[in-house]
C-alpha cells in the first residue's frame, strides 16, 4: 500500500492494537460491556437479551450450514422443542417442585430443571430426525428439514396428545424467588438478562471449542468436499448426524431462553418462517465466519428496532431484509463480518490486526503480512484459527 503519512500512522495504530490487544483484553472488554448493559434502560436490556437468544439460535444453525454445508429450513423445530420443554415443565411440574424444595427457591429450580428437560427433549427429537435427514443433501436436505419442521408445527397446532395447548401455545410463568424476605422475579428483565447472558456466553464458548476441535475440522473438510472427506476415511453421514444433533441442542438452549423471554411457547416457533430467521441472520452476518451469525443477529435485531422507530416504515422491515439477503448472496457472500475484515485490512494495511474482532482468534499473528495474502486469508478463513 502507499505509505502516506496518515496511512502509516493508521497502520502503526493497527499494529499496536495487534500487539497489545490480546484475546484476554478483548474478552475483558466484552465482559465489561455485558455487565454494563445490565444497568441500561429496561427496554434496551430486553432488546439485548433478544439479540443474545437469536444469536445463539443462528450460531447453532450455522454449525450445520456454514461449517458442514447443510442448509436446514427446519431448525425452528428445535427452537420450539426447547421452549415447549421448559414451558410444559413449568406448567405441570411447578407445584410439584414447590412441595419438594420449598416455595421460596422452587421457581429457580423449576427453571433449571425445565431447561434441562427442554434440552433433553430436543436431543431426543434430533437423534431420529437428524439420522433420517442426513441421508439427503443440498436442496433435498433443505426440503426434508422443512417438512420435519412443518410436521412438528402441525402436531403442536393440532395437539393430539393434549400437551401443547394448540394455537394459543403454553404460557410461561417464571415466578418469583423468595429468599428470606428478598424476592426477585426470575422473569424480571435484568435477572433474565443475566441468566441469558451467562448461558449464551457459555454455549458460544462451547461451540467455539467444538469448531476448533478435530470434530470441527472434520466438519469443514466435509463442507469443502464430502467425497474427499469420505476418501480420507471419514464416515461423512455419521459425522453429519452428530453435527446435526449438536446443532439442534444449541438451538434448543436458545429455545429454552426464548420461552422465558417471550413468556410463552407458541407454535409459531416451529413454523418455517422462524427457521428462516436463522438463515437471514447467518447469511447477512457471513456464514463462513464463526462470529457471522452473532453479528448477523445483531444487525437483524437492531436494524429491525431502528426501522420500528419510524411508524411509516415499521410494517415493511421484511422488505429491507429481503433486499439485504439478496444483495449479500449475489454480491458479497462473506457478509457483514467479511466486510469488517476487509475494512480492517484497509485501515491497518496488513494482516496485523488479524482476527482481533474474531474473539482474538488470531491476535498473535505476524504483523507484517502482505495485504494481498491477508485479503486472501479473509476470504478463506472460515472463522477458524488454523
Amino acid at each position, binding site marked *: 500500500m502507499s505509505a502516506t503519512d496518515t496511512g502509516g500512522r493508521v497502520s502503526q495504530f493497527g499494529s499496536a492494537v495487534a500487539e497489545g490487544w490480546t484475546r484476554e483484553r478483548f474478552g475483558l472488554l466484552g465482559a465489561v460491556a455485558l455487565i454494563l448493559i445490565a444497568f441500561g434502560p429496561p427496554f434496551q436490556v430486553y432488546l439485548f437479551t433478544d439479540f443474545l437468544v437469536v444469536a445463539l439460535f443462528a450460531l447453532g444453525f450455522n454449525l450445520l450450514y456454514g461449517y458442514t454445508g447443510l442448509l436446514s429450513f427446519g431448525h425452528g423445530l428445535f427452537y420450539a422443542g426447547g421452549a415447549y420443554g421448559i414451558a410444559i415443565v413449568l406448567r405441570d411440574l411447578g407445584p410439584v417442585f414447590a412441595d419438594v424444595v420449598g416455595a421460596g427457591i422452587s421457581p429457580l429450580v423449576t427453571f433449571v430443571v425445565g431447561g434441562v428437560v427442554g434440552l433433553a427433549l430436543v436431543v431426543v427429537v434430533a437423534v431420529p430426525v437428524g439420522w433420517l435427514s442426513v441421508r*439427503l443433501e443440498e436442496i433435498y436436505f433443505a426440503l426434508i428439514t422443512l417438512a*420435519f419442521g412443518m*410436521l412438528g408445527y402441525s*402436531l403442536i397446532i*393440532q395437539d393430539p396428545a393434549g400437551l401443547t395447548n394448540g394455537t394459543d401455545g403454553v404460557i410461561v410463568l417464571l415466578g418469583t424467588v423468595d429468599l428470606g424476605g428478598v424476592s426477585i422475579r426470575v422473569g424480571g428483565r435484568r435477572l433474565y438478562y443475566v441468566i441469558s447472558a451467562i448461558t449464551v456466553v457459555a454455549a458460544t464458548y462451547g461451540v467455539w471449542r467444538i469448531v476448533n476441535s478435530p470434530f470441527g475440522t472434520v466438519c469443514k473438510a466435509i463442507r469443502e468436499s464430502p467425497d474427499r472427506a469420505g476418501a480420507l476415511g471419514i464416515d461423512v453421514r455419521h459425522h453429519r448426524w452428530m453435527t446435526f444433533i449438536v446443532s439442534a441442542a444449541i438451538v434448543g438452549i436458545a429455545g429454552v431462553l426464548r420461552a422465558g423471554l417471550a413468556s410463552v411457547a407458541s407454535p409459531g416457533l416451529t413454523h418455517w418462517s422462524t427457521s428462516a430467521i436463522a438463515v437471514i441472520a447467518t447469511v447477512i452476518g457471513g456464514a463462513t465466519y464463526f462470529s457471522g451469525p452473532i453479528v448477523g443477529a445483531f444487525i437483524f435485531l437492531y436494524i429491525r428496532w431502528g426501522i420500528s422507530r419510524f411508524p411509516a416504515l415499521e410494517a415493511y422491515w421484511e422488505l429491507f431484509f*429481503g433486499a439485504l439477503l439478496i444483495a449479500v448472496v449475489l454480491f458479497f457472500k462473506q457478509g457483514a463480518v467479511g466486510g469488517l475484515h476487509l475494512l480492517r485490512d484497509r485501515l491497518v494495511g496488513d494482516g496485523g490486526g488479524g482476527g482481533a474482532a474474531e474473539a482474538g482468534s488470531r491476535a498473535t499473528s505476524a504483523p507484517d503480512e502482505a495485504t494481498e495474502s491477508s485479503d486472501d486469508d479473509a476470504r478463506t478463513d472460515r472463522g477458524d484459527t488454523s
Partner: protein
Amino acid sequence: MSFTSLVPLIGISDVVIGLSLGSRLFLIAVGLSLIFGVLGVLNFAHGGFYMLGAYVTLAVVSNVIDNFWVAAAAGALAVGVVGAAIELSAIRRLYNRVDSDLDQLIVTFGFVLVIHETVRFIWGSGSYSIDPPDVFNFSVALGGSTFNAYRLVVIGLAVAVLVGLWLFITRTYFGSLVRGTSSDREMAAMLGVDVPRLYTGVFFLGSVLAGLGGALSAPLQATSPALGDQVIIDAFIVVVIGGLGSMSGAFVGAMLIGMMQSLGPQFISAGSIAIPFLAMVIVLLLRPEGLFGGIGE
C-alpha cells in the same frame, strides 16, 4: 358393511372442491417443477408469484377492465415479466457457483420477503375477493350437494394446461430444446442452443403458470399477503410427492393434496394437517425422485 357407511360422507361437491383446490396447486407446482427440472433452481418465491397473480387480477378487474378473463391474462403475464426480471437480474448470477443450489434457494427466499412486503405496501394487509365470472357463477346441484360451476372451469383449465404443456414439451421445436438443455446443459450449449435465453424463457413460462394459478383462484379464495407463504409449502409437498421436474407428477400430486385438503378433515380429526408433511418426509426418504420421477416427463 363399513364401506357403505363411508359413502354418504363424501359428497360430489367435496370431490369437486378437492379437484379445484388440486387444480390451483397444479398450476403453481407445475411451474415450480418445470423451473427445477430445467434450471435446477428451487424457486421459493413461486408462492409469491401465485399471490401476485391473484392481486394483479383483482386490481385489473376493479380498476381497469371489468372482464375477468382479460384480467387473469394480465395477471399471468405480469407475473411472467416479474419472474423473467428476477431470473435476469439475480438468479442468473448464481448458475456457475460451486454451491449454487443453496444460494439460489436463499436468494429466492429473499424475493419471498420482497414480494410479500411489496404486495402489502401496494394493497395493504386486508384480504380481497371477487365473484367468479358471470357466465359460470351459478350453482350446480349434483348427487344431493351443490357447488359453483366455476370450479369445474378451473379443473378443466388445469387439465388443458397439462395437455398443452405436454404437447409443447414433447412436440414442438422449443420443447425439444428445453428437454435437451434439461438433460445436458453443456452439450446443448455446444450444439448452438442459447442456454441463457432458454433459461429466461423457462423461468418466464413457469412464472406465468404460477400467476395463472393465482389469477384463476382469485374468485375461489380470500386473497391476502399471507397467501403466498401458505401455498408455497403446499407446492413443495406436491412437487416432492410427484417428483421434482415431473409435470405429470405435479398433476397427480396436486390432485392428491387437493383431495386430502377437502376430504381429510372428515375422516381424521387430529393430525390431519400433519399427514401431507409426513408423506413428504416418507417420499423424500424412500423415493427422492418422487412417485412419478423422471425429469421432463
